[in-house]
């Protein structure tokens, strides 16, 4: 037994960290934040070339056949770098089909997703706070679906949508087949814009094992978001650490003040231990599925609460500059809020985790 990354995993994470190194990314992310680009296509292509979109796709469907552990390690780096790429929706759509598709469905959809040729996303919630598969009401009729879905990440750009349906079923909609329209508005996190989607008799292909896959997809979402939160929380912590070492007040560096040092210590003490939580969420998804729902719910709830709290504290440590658009801290602050909300608010997930215990 061990709980360390093997050499392949270390190398994988190292490589993606290099692709996403902060100084390369900053101008690209800025271009998205400042509205000059709708999303960071350049980085996304580099990630596709690296193989990100194929990681969890079985080899027979054109992928690398690896597990959520590897994908979560990548998600940590995406969170750290605040990459403005359509990873979340694409990864979850892929996982939904891997988990729920028949052999024919896998053969039909996965190669395009693995190669990155087709961009996908997921359309799950209807009202507010309806992340559980049992909350979904949309019913297919005559092979088509109609109705309204919310919180679709990068939904305006997706060519394929995995849609949550009544009874926890899942269906695949190809946008090009028509009947799909997207309502955009101003999202808080501009690196992961969400939109609402209206389906009007859109052709749908029901996944063979939809209800089982829907729960798995939710758990995967929670594990990936907790990885993102861990990476992002460390990044904004490092920004604050660097800032307090250069910024002066009252003739000394901020970091010379014990109160500041202790605030930074309190921050890092919250952040670092959550790594074990997100690792175990991804690990149990891959290797101990009976524990996955419990672990993923706890991981996302706790890690995103920490990220949100820490992002606020770090923003405050920057003083006035932290409240400006030009300074980058708010990019992570807003990603923290996204990670907190998407996939379910923490309180609900803690209660979901409790339901998995013998309490």
């Amino acid at each position, binding site marked *: 037994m061990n709980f360390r990354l093997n050499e392949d995993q270390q190398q994988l994470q190292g490589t993606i960290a290099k692709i996403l190194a902060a100084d390369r990314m900053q101008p690209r992310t800025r271009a998205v934040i400042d509205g000059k680009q709708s999303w960071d296509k350049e980085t996304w292509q580099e990630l596709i070339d690296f193989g990100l979109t194929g990681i969890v796709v079985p080899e027979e469907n054109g992928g690398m056949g690896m597990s959520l552990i590897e994908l979560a390690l990548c998600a940590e780096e995406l969170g750290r770098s605040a990459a403005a790429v359509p990873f979340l929706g694409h990864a979850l759509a892929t996982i939904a089909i891997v988990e729920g598709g028949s052999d024919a469905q896998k053969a039909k959809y996965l190669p395009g997703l693995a190669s990155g040729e087709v961009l996908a996303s997921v359309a799950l*919630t209807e009202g*507010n*706070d309806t992340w559980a598969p049992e909350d979904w009401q949309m019913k297919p009729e005559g092979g088509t679906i109609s109705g*309204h879905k*919310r*919180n679709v990440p990068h939904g305006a750009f997706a060519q394929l949508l995995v849609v949550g349906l009544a009874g926890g079923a899942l269906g695949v909609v190809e946008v090009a087949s028509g009947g799909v329209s997207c*309502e955009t*508005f*101003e*999202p*808080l*996190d501009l690196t992961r814009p*969400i939109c*609402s989607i*209206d389906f009007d008799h859109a052709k749908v292909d029901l996944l063979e094992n939809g209800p089982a896959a829907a729960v798995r997809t939710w758990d995967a979402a929670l594990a990936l978001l907790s990885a993102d939160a861990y990476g992002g929380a460390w990044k904004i912590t490092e920004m604050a650490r660097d800032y307090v070492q250069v910024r*002066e*007040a*009252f*003739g*000394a*560096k901020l970091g*010379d*003040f*014990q*109160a*500041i040092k202790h605030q930074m210590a309190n921050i890092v003490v919250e952040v670092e231990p959550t790594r074990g939580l997100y690792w175990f969420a991804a690990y149990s998804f891959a290797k101990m599925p009976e524990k996955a729902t419990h672990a993923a719910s706890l991981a996302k709830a706790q890690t995103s609460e920490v990220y*949100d709290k820490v992002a*606020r504290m770090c*923003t*405050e440590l920057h*003083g*006035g500059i*932290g*409240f*400006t*658009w*030009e300074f980058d801290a*708010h990019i992570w*602050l*807003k990603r923290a*809020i*996204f990670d*907190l*909300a*998407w996939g*379910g*608010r*923490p*309180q*609900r997930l803690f209660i979901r985790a409790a339901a998995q215990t013998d309490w």
Partner: protein
Amino acid sequence: MDLSYSQENEEYRAKLQAFLQENWPLPESLGDLEARKEEFRRRATAAGYMMRAIPKEYGGSEQPLDFLKGEIIREEIKKHGAPTEVVHIGTGRVVPVLLAHGTPEQKAKWIPGTVSREFMWSQGYSEPNAGSDLASLKTRAELVGDKWIINGQKIWSSRAHKDPYMVLLVRTEPEDVAPRHKGISYMLVDLRQPGVEIRPIKQISGEPEFNEVFFTNAEAPADAIVGGRGNGWNVSRMLLRFERAAFSGINWADSLIARAVKTARSTIRNGRPAIEDPSLRADLARLQARAMAMRYSAYRDMSMEAVGEPSGDYMLMQKLYLTEFLLKLDDITRDLLADDLMMLRPGEGGDGLKGNAKWVDATLQSLKIRIAGGSSNIQRNIIGERVLGLPRDQVGVNARKNQEAAQ
């Protein structure tokens, strides 16, 4: 101890209600809405309901300080839906300083125009390298002939892009004056001149609200300093105290609780309004306890000040206490908003609970409150030292000693 409205106050309220009945709304013959509002305010001032702290000779109504009457006026004007007094930096901060420290000429020159809102003001205190530590500011003014020549940079001036005048803290004395804050003066400057460049700063909400203001050989007349050369530190500290004394934070806290309750009513959880959840109700009551603690502590302080008793240290703590309140409120609203947290503006198609977008903005603004007007750490230093008598912080002092020793 008597919180009841006395006979006198009830009569005051009745008189005010009659005034409001008579004067609002005003007939459309008196002009457009803005003009009618202005006319109402003019009448309210004449009747003693607005500009109460400002002498009559400068356009105020010169009423004795009475925080209960202040509350009655606020309540009744709100109930009646009449225009409220316009709160701005000019009457809130510049006029009190002029009244306390200005020469007769300065008062005559600046106060009436400020009261009438002909002169609107922004504030030029902070600099890129002097935020909490204002005493280290670097913007300089030198007296050349009969003019001050100003060079430097100010930041976080919230209205400089709209308002033509600025109150400036500026170094007018030599660098080696010790302590450093003795070299700072309080100066009134007209920003509409070639030597001044204003660049808006976009906030994290995407809205521009702040500005950087660059001074390159900008000019001000010799009599632009209020309170004397090198006395700007004391003058500005009086301002900060004035700023803190307001009830605005407490009234704001009450209104935030009311808004949170409203949101909790319209948010559905497990098929029932969230407001029915006992745990949420307890959390809201916790907030209410804090708001009440603020209100009655402030009542006490003001009651004591009104009879000249030393009023204790509560007012020094209110900002930090309010900060904590906002943090706890944020935790509540995050859970209530759920997915709506991800929208900065609500969807046109009806997505997002009406009003929830306001909360997203509020959570960003609450961060600003924590930073503005002195960081929480500075507040803690002040409280530790003044309220508890703990030693002054040594780090800054020692760092400066070491720097000097190295020079």
